[in-house]
């Protein structure tokens, strides 16, 4: 992270960055450091980098949880429609900004996105709840239905936004541009505690992949745990989406990737996926920020880099398996 913070249009050495951070906590800033550097590091680069790291970790962990609990290796943090809900909320906010609103966009968009995600989650759960035991099929189906409705809503808003439609499309692609300490704070509150809580339920989630009957026979209240764990993972995901827009791929691929190497046990899967998610988005964000002539949306970049890498590893493990 320190190294990444040094890269960019203005190059700053890791030593200088440490001194700047120390100065930020009340230390003395040496005269050798350019007076504009502290602003670049503390207000621009660090919040953005920490945001990228937390979003990466949060999405990867949520991916593990959704895949385990929905008993479906193809699930990702967005399976229950959280992304559509957040996107709808953000689109509404952007539309309000276009027609004129007094509130600052940096506040109103994440707020609406988060609200949209939570409302969607509530809708999906209440739609799936009458089914016995909140089964994964009914949850997935409810997620698809609500997503479809919201997608239509987003299309309508894009249509209404007319020439300002770019703002919505750009948000939908996900980005870490202009992230500040408020975003970092929101993410820290949601992502870090939820990751710790979810780690506590690793064993239950492992067992629950075998089906409800055997899990209950082992003393697990499957309905209660499924509801609790999905809500925790969804809150974390909602925070990530609200702050950074929709960054696909991380939540699907990172857990797969880690599972291929370490096996399916959540005890290792969750913490290692968290770290890998952090590293993946930090790397991707650094690449788009530093190396490329113009910033391309982070979601696009992760898929472009991660996709082929995943194909390569997938192919390799499949070949090994058949030997």
């Amino acid at each position, binding site marked *: 992270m320190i190294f990444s913070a040094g890269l960019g249009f203005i190059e700053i050495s890791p030593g200088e960055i440490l001194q700047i951070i120390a100065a930020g906590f009340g230390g003395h800033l040496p005269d050798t450091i350019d007076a504009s550097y502290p602003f670049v590091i503390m207000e621009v680069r660090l919040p953005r980098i920490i945001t990228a790291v937390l979003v990466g970790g949060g999405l990867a962990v949520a991916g593990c949880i959704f895949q385990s609990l929905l008993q479906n290796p193809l699930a990702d943090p967005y399976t229950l429609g959280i992304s559509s809900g957040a996107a709808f909320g953000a689109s509404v906010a952007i539309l309000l900004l276009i027609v004129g609103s007094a509130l600052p966009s940096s506040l109103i968009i994440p707020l609406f996105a988060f609200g949209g995600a939570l409302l969607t989650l509530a809708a999906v759960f209440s739609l799936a709840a009458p089914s016995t035991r909140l089964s994964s099929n009914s949850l997935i189906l409810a997620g698809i239905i609500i997503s479809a409705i919201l997608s239509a809503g987003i299309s309508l808003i894009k249509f209404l936004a007319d020439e300002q439609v770019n703002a919505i499309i750009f948000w939908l692609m996900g980005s870490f541009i202009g992230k500040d300490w408020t975003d970092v704070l929101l993410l820290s509150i949601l992502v870090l505690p939820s990751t710790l809580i979810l780690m506590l339920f690793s064993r239950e989630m492992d*067992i629950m992949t075998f*089906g409800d009957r*055997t899990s209950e026979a082992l003393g*697990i209240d499957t309905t209660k745990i499924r509801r609790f764990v999905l809500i925790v993972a969804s809150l974390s995901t909602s925070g990530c989406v609200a702050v950074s827009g929709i960054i696909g791929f991380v939540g699907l691929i990172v857990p797969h990737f880690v599972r291929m190497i370490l096996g399916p046990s959540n005890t290792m899967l969750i913490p290692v996926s968290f770290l890998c998610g952090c590293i993946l988005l930090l790397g991707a964000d650094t690449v788009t920020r530093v190396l490329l002539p113009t910033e391309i949306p982070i979601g696009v970049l992760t898929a472009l880099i991660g996709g082929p890498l995943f194909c390569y590893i997938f192919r390799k493990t499949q070949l090994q398996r058949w030997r």
Partner: protein
Amino acid sequence: MRDSRGWDLENVYFSYAAAPCLQEISMALERGRFYGLIGPNGSGKSTLIDLLSGYVRADQGTIRLNGRPLHSMQRLELAALLTVVPQRFAFNFDFNVYETVMMGRYPHISRFSSPTQNDHRQVSEALALLDVAYLAERSIRKLSGGETQRVMIARALVQDTDFILLDEVTANLDINHAIAIMQTMKALVNRGKTVIAALHDLNMALSFCDHILVLNNGRLHRQGMATEVIDEGLVADIYQVSSEVINGDDGSVHLSFKYQ
């Protein structure tokens, strides 16, 4: 007074989506016996197993285990008393056989500790007992139906409960493994455990079970000693098949079915 340890069912009704599944079931299942639960497809055997395990709750009537109503007990309390091997499982991820069987120790391992020597020993013993030790490192998804079934029985055994419910567990097995599992269960019963096994194979029931429960159309059709309950009349009655009971010289009894 009768021993209160075991199940006690009083006028139990259960329906699924308004269609009655089980009706008027009253019976006592005593500790230390090997019960065979037989009856045609759809007669309610699996539902009765679900009720006895507390997976579903009776619409009417009460089910007590060791004198306490099942629905008043916490899941973890029940898990200390009884285990279930259901007919079907979901296998979506590549857990290996050893990890899978270790999950059976879940009720005995608290959240913040890891498996002890004793846990590992029990798992190894169960793997050996069910003849699946050589599969320990193999993914659960790469086993045959019979191997999977034996692994899941091993997992139930390491849970180390007094009461064991089996739902058609020998259905997928080769005859040698089916017999081995029934012998294992018999040995557990002789050591004081209680086994209730839903079975298709009437000869298995005759050979191994002390006591037979016959379900037909959701009602308890008959119950009693295996050799007294399973006879030509019963087979004709509930399966509409003619058969003959053959008494072996060694005291064994089995059914021979007539195909015409």
